[in-house]
């Protein structure tokens, strides 16, 4: 007995519908809005509506960035933070970014496994992103994703990324407060000192602080942060024992409110907007440039510099 299965088509929602559902806090609308960012047919008006809405509504989400090398326990830390925040009645949205395969374009996104046990829960939202579409290390999509989550009025928006390389310093501009998570004994406790990101984060969170090797890493950390102009604070936590988690939440809340009072928050958000304009310009131009470079035949007897400046002139960019 053959059962005829009607061919499914992805239900079409207009941009208007998506927007209305998004601001109403509807999960489907929010999820669709996040997909729209990648849709080549979406209008630029859609995102502008979101930004306008966020400005008008006044209330802000606390946007927290969590970055760090693989294996330090970012996902576990976020799951513990989320659990506590949910318990105190807050609404939490999480964005996790994982690298995609440069060869196939596919990606394995497993960060949410860590807090699957907190679902189903109407107050928790988790979205996994690949680094798909990144051109030259720029990922403007995630910035806009943060704004979309803010439009859905989450109390906290947490962004989790892998903290390696120059590109990841972006997270600092994306969030209100950014924490670098480290863990002892990974054999590369000195690595993070070289990455440059230590100098731009607000806070260093030492995870797995219950391990015996932790004190040595803390020692190195203290001596380093004394040398860094920004003097990031250091907090010790253990996702496993829950030690220090309440303190971390209190610290983040206090810091955020302090920034709000002193005007630092406004300063950062203004910079974020400007940085994102630059991101989009770099991204759009980057793609155009990539296309050009892929198609152009090499003219080996002419200097690349000459070709570059001439082409840009053709495109109407005076250099």
């Amino acid at each position, binding site marked *: 007995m053959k059962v005829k299965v009607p061919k499914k088509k992805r239900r079409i929602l207009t941009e208007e519908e998506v927007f209305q559902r998004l601001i109403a806090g509807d999960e489907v609308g929010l999820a669709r809005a996040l997909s729209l960012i990648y849709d080549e047919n979406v209008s630029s008006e859609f995102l502008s509506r979101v930004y306008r809405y966020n400005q008008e509504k006044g209330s802000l989400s606390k946007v927290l960035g969590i970055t760090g090398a693989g294996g330090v326990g970012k996902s*576990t830390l976020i799951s513990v933070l989320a659990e506590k925040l949910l318990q105190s009645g807050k609404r939490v949205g999480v964005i996790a970014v994982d690298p995609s395969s440069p060869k196939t374009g596919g990606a394995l996104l*497993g960060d949410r*496994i*860590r807090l699957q*046990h907190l679902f189903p829960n109407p107050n928790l939202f988790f979205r996994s992103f690949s680094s798909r579409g990144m051109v030259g290390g720029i990922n403007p999509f995630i910035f806009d994703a943060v704004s979309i989550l803010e439009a859905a009025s989450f109390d906290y928006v947490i962004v989790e990324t892998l903290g390696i390389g120059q590109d990841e310093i972006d997270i600092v501009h994306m969030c209100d407060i950014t924490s670098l998570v480290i863990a002892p004994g990974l054999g590369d406790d000195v690595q993070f000192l070289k990455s440059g990101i230590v100098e731009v984060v607000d806070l260093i969170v030492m995870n797995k602080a219950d391990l015996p090797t932790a004190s040595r890493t803390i020692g190195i950390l203290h001596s380093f942060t004394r040398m860094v102009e920004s003097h990031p604070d250091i907090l010790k936590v253990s996702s496993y024992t829950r030690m220090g988690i309440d303190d971390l939440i209190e610290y983040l809340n206090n810091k955020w409110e302090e920034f709000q009072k002193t005007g630092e928050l406004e300063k950062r958000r203004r910079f974020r907007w400007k940085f994102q304009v630059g991101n989009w310009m770099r991204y759009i131009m980057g793609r155009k440039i990539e296309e050009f470079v892929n198609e152009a035949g090499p003219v080996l007897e002419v200097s690349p510099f000459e070709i570059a400046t001439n082409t840009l002139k053709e495109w109407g960019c005076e250099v």
Partner: protein
Amino acid sequence: MSDREEIKKVKEEWLATDYAKFVAKVPERKNPFMLDSGIEVEPVYTPADLDEDWDYLKKLNFPGRFPFTRGVYPTMYRGRFWTMRQYAGFGTAEESNKRFKYLLEQGQTGLSVAFDLPTQLGYDSDHELAVGEVGKVGVAIDSVEDMHILFDGIPLDKVSTSMTINAPAAILLAMYIVVAEEKGIDRKVLRGTIQNDILKEYVARGTYIFPPRPSMRLIADTIMFCAEEVPKWNPISISGYHIRESGSTAVQEIAFTLGDAIEYVKAVIARGMDVDKFAARLSFFFASHNNFFEEIAKFRAARRIWATIMKEKFGAQNPKSMMLRFHTQTAGSTLTAQQPLNNIVRVAIQALAAVIGGTQSLHTNSYDEALSLPTEESVTVALRTQQIIAYESGVADVIDGIGGSYYVEKLTDEIEKKVWEYLNKIEQMGGMIPAIEEGYIQQEITDAAYNYYKAVAEGEKVVVGVNKFVDPNEDLTKFHLHRADPTVREKQIARLKELRAKRDNEKVKKLLAELKEAAQDENTNLMPYIIEAVRARATLGEITDVLREVFGEYRPPVIF
């Protein structure tokens, strides 16, 4: 006697001339030939291929003597064949009981119990997560009352019972003891096994409850309790079967199993028990896979390595503590849905390897295993496979008949070397538990699994009937599934209601509170407390929930 150097020279010469000539005309099917374990297979092996210091008495010795490479007993199958123990599972305790009685009538002296997933995970049948699972992959046991039904009319003093249960094994063992005692049987005569191997659950089988450290404490509790109170019981069956089935190589199967075993021994010694007091009752469980020689070499290497570990690392004095006794199951994952009759041949080869490899007991899979729980006909063929090997093939009439084969001895040595590499690495990481918590073991396994999948997908590894010699007209719709009784859940829920109404609920509460307090002290053996709670008719779920409160639940690392 040709000397080593001479043989080596001739081999090189032979490879360069006769062999090379043939290869030029007919290239070899593969280049190189590799075992999944990463060992290259040469065209032919000679005495000169063994290590220079290879010594018969050191490497092999005699059956029943350290390092037990050739077998753990002096007479092996010349005295008694391996135990032919087929694993089986049915939905309700009543149905299982019927099957047990039937098997006993047929002359089987060993029972093997499969439990359903809610039971394996410490959930009562009325739990939300038990929907669709009650009585499916085994029998549903919610309380000692169900255990009574399961073993009704069965002389527990005369049979040996193997229970495939891990995370809540202590509770099921307690139930078994209480049932025996309520039938007037002294716990000291009880014989059987509980699998009770939590470390492999984290990496291969997925039926864990608590995190590693409290789980190890519970396991140590059961091992120590049995050493004193239930001396004929095997309190653990340290398993490599599931690790292999989840995709590992033969080397990883042995390395990770022995790594787990080392942790268990360490845990009990740390509680103050002398190694010779409990080590003789440790038993093992391996898979038998396709590559005939690799599997045989694997079993031999495992025995030699374990003996060495027990003697040198743990200082065991009693030879019994150094013997690796194991049960084998033929590798289910190698069986195909396509052309199922081919599986009879696969199982036969795998069983033969296990027997030549010296297993103490063996389960052979049924040919329709890939499709469903086996029918009576296919189960019989599987049993006959063992009986034909035993009675007709002659391999059981000599001990380690393949010993001395240059290839097998070389392979045994190579596998041993690679296993030691893993064991040393794991030791550097601080032991199996850190290795598991960091996801190292899981990553090794999942990489091996993916490599295997790719090799088959690309046709580099041939699976007859699947990617070669395929029957395009094969009708795969003909198989059926053993239907579990869908009413089992309701029956169990009704039983639970009745139980809770009849028992002394105050007493249960009190005993559970005592268990909770005892659980908080790492050095208190929980078995007596669990036995009392079981006796008062506390349910499996209620007892597990108490432990869940104290120990927490395990959250695995994210490894692909």
